[in-house]
């Protein structure tokens, strides 16, 4: 099937097998390997991307469902060489260790804060339930999201 997808500002036209998962399309067809795969049941959230303004798990989305969509992956989050406040906050707060869940975690957290600028710790913890990190114990992730929320609010 032919699909047209805009990813990180570039429009791609591709012919894909109908069963192709969006995450495989991004990784194998477009070479955007920043989006990781951590499970096969939509539990871990490592593959989270932004599609049409929503945080979406790309392992449970078919590429054909993304026809006509605007997608941002972790590679497209920094703008003009400037890290997104969420990326900076993850770095500054040691919110990652092995880094594998990080792209999905950052993409999920970014939408969480965009949708709720005055987010509380409890809301962050609840909102990130769909993203599993095995390394950090979440402590510094929560800290980072709070810090990023403050910076994102200040920047408006």
């Amino acid at each position, binding site marked *: 099937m032919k699909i047209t997808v805009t990813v990180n500002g570039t429009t791609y036209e591709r012919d894909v097998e109908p069963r192709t998962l969006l995450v495989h399309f991004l990784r194998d067809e477009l070479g955007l390997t920043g989006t*990781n795969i951590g499970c096969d049941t939509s539990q871990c959230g490592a593959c989270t991307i932004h599609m049409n303004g929503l945080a979406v798990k790309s392992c449970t989305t078919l590429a054909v469902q993304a026809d006509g969509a605007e997608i941002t992956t*972790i590679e497209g989050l920094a703008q003009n060489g400037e890290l997104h406040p969420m990326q900076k906050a993850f770095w500054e707060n040691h919110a990652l260790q092995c*880094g594998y869940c990080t792209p999905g975690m950052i993409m999920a957290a970014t939408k969480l804060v965009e949708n709720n600028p005055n987010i509380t710790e409890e809301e962050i913890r609840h909102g990130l339930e769909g993203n599993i990190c095995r390394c*950090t114990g979440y*402590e510094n992730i929560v800290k980072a999201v709070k810090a990023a929320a403050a910076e994102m609010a200040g920047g408006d």
Partner: protein
Amino acid sequence: MSRYVGKSMKRVEDPRFIQGKGKYVANIHLPNMAHLAIKRSPYGHARIKSIDTSKAKALPGVIAVYTGQDLIEGGVGKLPCGWNVPDIKVPDRWPLTPDKVRHVGDGVAAVVAETPYIAYDALDLIEVDYEPLPAVVDAKKATEPGAPLVHDNVPNNISYTWALGDKEACDKAFAEADVVVELELVNQRLIPNAMEPRAAVAQWNAATEEMTLWTTSQNPHPIRLLLSAFTLGIPENKLRVISPDVGGGFGSKIFHYPEEIITPWVARAINRPVKWVATRTESMMTDSQGRDHVTHCKLALKKDGTMTGLHVQTWSNQGAYISTFAPLIPTALYITLLSGLYKIPGIWGEMWGTLTNTVPVDAYRGAGRPEASYLLERLVDLAAQELGMDPIEIRRKNFIPANEFPYQTPVAFMYDSGDYHKLFDKAEELADYKKMRQEQEKARKEGRLIGIGVAGCIEASGPAPSAVAGSLGSAVGFWESGKIRIHPSGKVTVFTGSHAHGQGHETTFAQVIADELGVNIEDVEIVHGDTASVPFGMGTYGSRSAAVGGSALVRSAERIRAKMIKIAAHQLEAAEEDMVYDQDSGKIYVKGSPDRAKSFAEISLAAYTAHNLPEGLEPGLEETAFYDPANFTFPNSAHIAQVEVDRETGEVRILRYVAVDDVGKVINPLIVEGQIVGGIAQGVGQALWEHGVYDENGQLLTGSLMDYAMPRADGFPHIEVARTETPSPHNPLGVKGAGEMGTIAATVAIANGVMDALAPLGIKHIDMPLTAEKIWQAIQNATSGNGASGGGD
């Protein structure tokens, strides 16, 4: 003197991870690459009557299909055991099993195809005719008469037995005890679940007959050795193993796995690059798992709370095969830790390593040590309850005093250093322990179930003196290598045999070397994980990187400084012994005349121009050191958890968690705290949620993240972390391991907290995981005499 060591520096590796530029194995794409998938057993135990691969082979896009027999005929070897305790029976383990499947997930055939999708389609077309056999999954029941045999040549399913301690002193302690407390417990099976599933990519160069294997390993050099000497047969000088960024390991990526053999074997067979990536479910049924002990233990005490004896019997589930280091875990990393923080004269520990129809078990974060801490600290709490003592009071009464280090325990280890009273002083203060107890008293009167869990734990980290490891059964040495290359421009490349998969070596080792040489940290690059560039290495596990790998780098840096001093002395026409190496700036000057000096960059260049070197001194500036540790290091911890059990639902909520750890000197507090907190999360996971469950047929019931309860962000409070510091006296950095202490202590701190909460109901023990359902049931059973129905909705 140190500009960097001891400071919380942001990690230099992070920019690539936060931008999606991590170099994970699954991200590698090579031209003309083919894709591998493995057909796996759906049975826990079954005989393979026949395998028909014809339909799979006929599928367009399939390149080849191989069975276990094809691989054996193609020259693969059996997976070896790297830790041979006396009289161990190591059953055959082939990369793909040719005759019988022995656990769900055991590989029976491999497909290589043009795309991963086609490879998976082909798996469905392979017809395997199985004859299901009765299975055994329980570590102790496996030894009972009539239990199905996992391997016909291992009677009673007992692969090995091991014992340590002073049986006579132990018997005497129990004969003369005032009080004995006992526990029958299960330390449940865990599934490590590093977030990155295992993966392998292999590339064969037919012209040079060289193989390159990228694999998700914590220790690429030992994998190369095992591939070369046992399983693949390509000599080490023709085999390059690379472990680039690895997305977590927690022990599960130490071991040699079948896919590391099959992938390169197939790449050579079809002369194309080949890639294999596990799905999560595949990881859950093939990555070596953790814990799984059935234990009977008892502690003997005097009336005043003095511990006199400890007797432990453990049946340790090894799974269907003996994984690479499996026999190390329940022996030399378990029974040796039974003394804990205490002086216990009569300790006797014995264990049976048994085979079952489950996924093999090996090291998982803590590895033997959380199991030891769990039973000991549970027993100590039961004793405190029995004697009417405060849990901290009874612990303090039995601590090894700070002035008795080094301390020889009755179970082999010589503890290097520690101050356990100071450790608990800090924990009590931070937790405001007395007030916590008062609050508990008050809450109990209101009918609330509040508990305070105390854990005082020991760890042996930084394995190990190689000769000691050898005497205990190790097939390898446990030194580490470090190489430092100073470039003519004065830039520094550091090669370490340690491997980072989340620990941040690129930052901490750069801090160490920048301080050792007096250069800017930006000028230091850390290289690891590639057998072609790093001379040799033993990798990362057992919290050994700083203590052993860091020490090797310090030794290399000492040699670099010594050579630079020689060159500077020669050029400044001064005696070597009159030279001063300023580790703040890298400047080398004549004592008393700081202006008669050479800069680091000047000497670096001079070493390579070689225009004016001392007579007989070789040009170049590159040094390698191999460091064999003199002892393990012994980090220790005091953790206090305040929990509340909901009487109606059985749910546990952690109200506060205070962790004080002594991990010796700290290179980067930010990273160490991250390790401690992350470790705590895994300990809490075991205590409350995680359990790898098999049914009686060996079916893995928790084979996906929908069934296996991983810790998630909403299960935790803020974790309060602090440190005390008694430097390790035997390594140059004074460091102890920091990677596993959190897990070791948190498991039992939480369990003790929950049991303390339930104590007013007369509940003594519930096996982990302490799920709401189990606790609710225990509450119903305990209160049914008071009219509670125990049923209802």
